[in-house]
């Protein structure tokens, strides 16, 4: 595989990467210095011709070359993120393509059953999507109001000391492993909810969604709060001078001013909820179920991937490929939300 990549200031980096034996050779040159192209690496090999008249020049030259080498190396580390994205897309698409050779896209999108591991196999993604949508909706109904209120409170109302204590606490809340939240949902929240709704089954989208919502609050609130704190003080002061109260200022001046950041926080919350795995895998059951009722057990896309991975499906089988098709669906859903978020940010960005 050969990448031809432009590096700054008209330089070029040719990176020939033989992935099998990890043989990496890098050649650096600039168009204005074509003659240097013939210089062989490593440069230290030229130390021997250290003649007196050219030693200063040689030193500078070596210095320049090693600087370029380091820059190229750093560029490669930065390029890893692009490579990861490309690898994710390439991997999901190729594995899904071989899945769609067996299953038509129409069946995938419209069939109402998802039973790829049964003898009578059905490949309809709808039950998984409905599970994902319901659990995310419950989570967001908790996380968005509570996250917003927390953000407004911390940014506009809370005294300094409360904020200094509350922010790290919320951050710690966001650091608890998701598998622990799953345990909490299954063994604490579900029994608690069963006291209120006696007909609630042991696995339900409701308890998974509620716990997921609590889990997402710190993400939403800290990002929304940052956005609100970035609104300049003089806007608030103008509002107070007009006789507005704190609450009016927060809702009518600060929130519109920070809208793009708050929207980004909501979008982040949505992608978290959609991509969350362990809570739903533990507390919502793993049975694909086309339902819009949060009181029922159902599997989400992520829970299905976990369920298949726990078994031992042979590489290349249709069951193995289904998790990549499910993963591609998941990535597309989060991608749509990210694009919406990007557009919202662009549309409502305020520059102070």
């Amino acid at each position, binding site marked *: 595989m050969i990448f031809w990549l*432009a590096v*700054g200031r008209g330089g070029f980096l040719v990176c020939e990467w033989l992935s099998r034996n990890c043989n990496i050779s890098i050649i650096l040159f600039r168009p204005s210095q074509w003659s240097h192209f013939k210089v062989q690496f490593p440069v230290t090999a030229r130390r021997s011709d250290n003649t007196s008249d050219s030693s200063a020049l040689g030193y500078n030259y070596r*210095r320049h070359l090693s*600087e370029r080498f*380091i*820059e190229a*190396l*750093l*560029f*490669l*580390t*930065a390029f*890893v*993120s692009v490579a*990861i*994205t490309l*690898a*994710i897309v390439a*991997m*999901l698409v190729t*594995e899904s393509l071989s899945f769609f050779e067996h299953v038509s896209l129409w069946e995938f999108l419209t069939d109402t059953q998802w039973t790829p591991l049964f003898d009578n196999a059905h490949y309809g993604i709808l039950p998984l999507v409905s599970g994902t949508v319901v659990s995310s909706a419950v989570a967001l109904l908790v996380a968005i109001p*509570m996250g917003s209120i*927390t953000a407004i*409170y*911390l940014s506009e*109302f809370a005294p300094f000391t409360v904020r200094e204590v509350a922010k*790290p*606490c919320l*951050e*710690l*809340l966001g*650091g*608890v*492993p*998701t*598998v*622990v939240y799953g*345990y*909490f949902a299954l*063994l*604490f929240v579900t029994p608690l909810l069963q006291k209120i709704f006696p007909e609630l089954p042991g696995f339900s989208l409701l308890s998974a969604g509620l716990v997921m919502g*609590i889990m997402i609050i710190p993400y939403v609130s800290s990002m929304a709060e940052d956005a609100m704190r970035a609104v300049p003080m003089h806007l608030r002061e103008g509002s107070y001078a007009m006789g507005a109260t*704190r*609450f*009016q200022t*927060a809702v009518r001046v600060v929130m519109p001013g920070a809208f793009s950041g708050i929207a980004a926080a909501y979008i982040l919350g949505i992608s978290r909820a959609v*991509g969350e*795995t*362990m809570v739903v895998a*533990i507390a919502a059951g793993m049975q694909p179920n086309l339902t819009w009722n949060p009181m029922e057990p159902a599997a989400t896309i*992520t829970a299905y991937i*976990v369920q298949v*991975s*726990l078994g031992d499906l042979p*590489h290349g089988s249709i069951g193995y490929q289904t*998790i990549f098709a499910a*993963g591609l669906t*998941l*990535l597309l859903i*989060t991608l749509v939300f990210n694009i919406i978020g990007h557009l919202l940010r662009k549309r409502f960005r305020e520059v102070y």
Partner: protein
Amino acid sequence: MSDARNLREIRAIIARHKLGDMIFLVTGLLVLMIAVLTFIALFSHMLIDGLPRLSWDFFTSFPSRRPGSAGILSAWVGTTLVMIVTAAAAVPLGIGAGIYLEEYAPKNILTEIIEINVTNLAGVPSIIYGLLALSLFVHQLGFGQSILSAGLALALLILPIVIVATREAIRAIPVTIREGAYALGATKWQTVSDHLLPYSAAGILTGIIIGLARAIGETAPIITIGALTFIAFLPPSPFKEEFPYISFEWLMAPFTVMPIQMFNWVSRPEEAFQVNAAAAGLVLVVMTLTMNALAIYLRYRMRKNLKW
């Protein structure tokens, strides 16, 4: 007369608005309390269930069919080894990328693509990284369901965290430091390695700790690459009797980690195993909370005594 009535009306409006303020103040505190109370409920529930189970034997026993004698030895050893791989991969890559984007990157399309990529990668669900690792590391590169695959998967996952932390830490250093170094004839790399990296070390460390804390608790990607849940043996030791004393066989060994062990116990119906899950969860939460608290404390220290 009408003036007095107006005044009364205005006072009523003011009182109403102030009441609105008060109501929101109380709501805000209440919501904050709910979030914190949930955490306290979570922690105490696990403490009550799990604490009696915590003993020396719990840390030094392998998982077992009998819940009473099961332990987390293979799980915490696995977690430690996976974290070593993750740190070894994510730290150099993340710091390198952060330095490049902050100090070297020219303003062009490629840089912009890289930046957008870093932002987007932070929003990719963790299980997608698991699928990537399953396809790329486990099957295509042939690493198998090993510590190496898991460590690399988690490294990719926390890479954006390390990159962002590095960038923020480097950006906070005033430009005068760089100009001073350049004025003395230092090259760019000399400036970076002798000045910028030491000054931003605390900030970068904070990011690394937060990233690793996230990686320790991450379950989904490791399940996806097919880690076994029942491992009653340890990976080969990294130290050997004879030359070269260090072996890397453990990289390719099958493994289990703390969150997977906990998941396995939670999903069993017997109550005795769920007590084990609570104990394992307690250890896990204490581990991640300690790391996060350390990071928060480091950041607090940094904010308090800025050196310039």
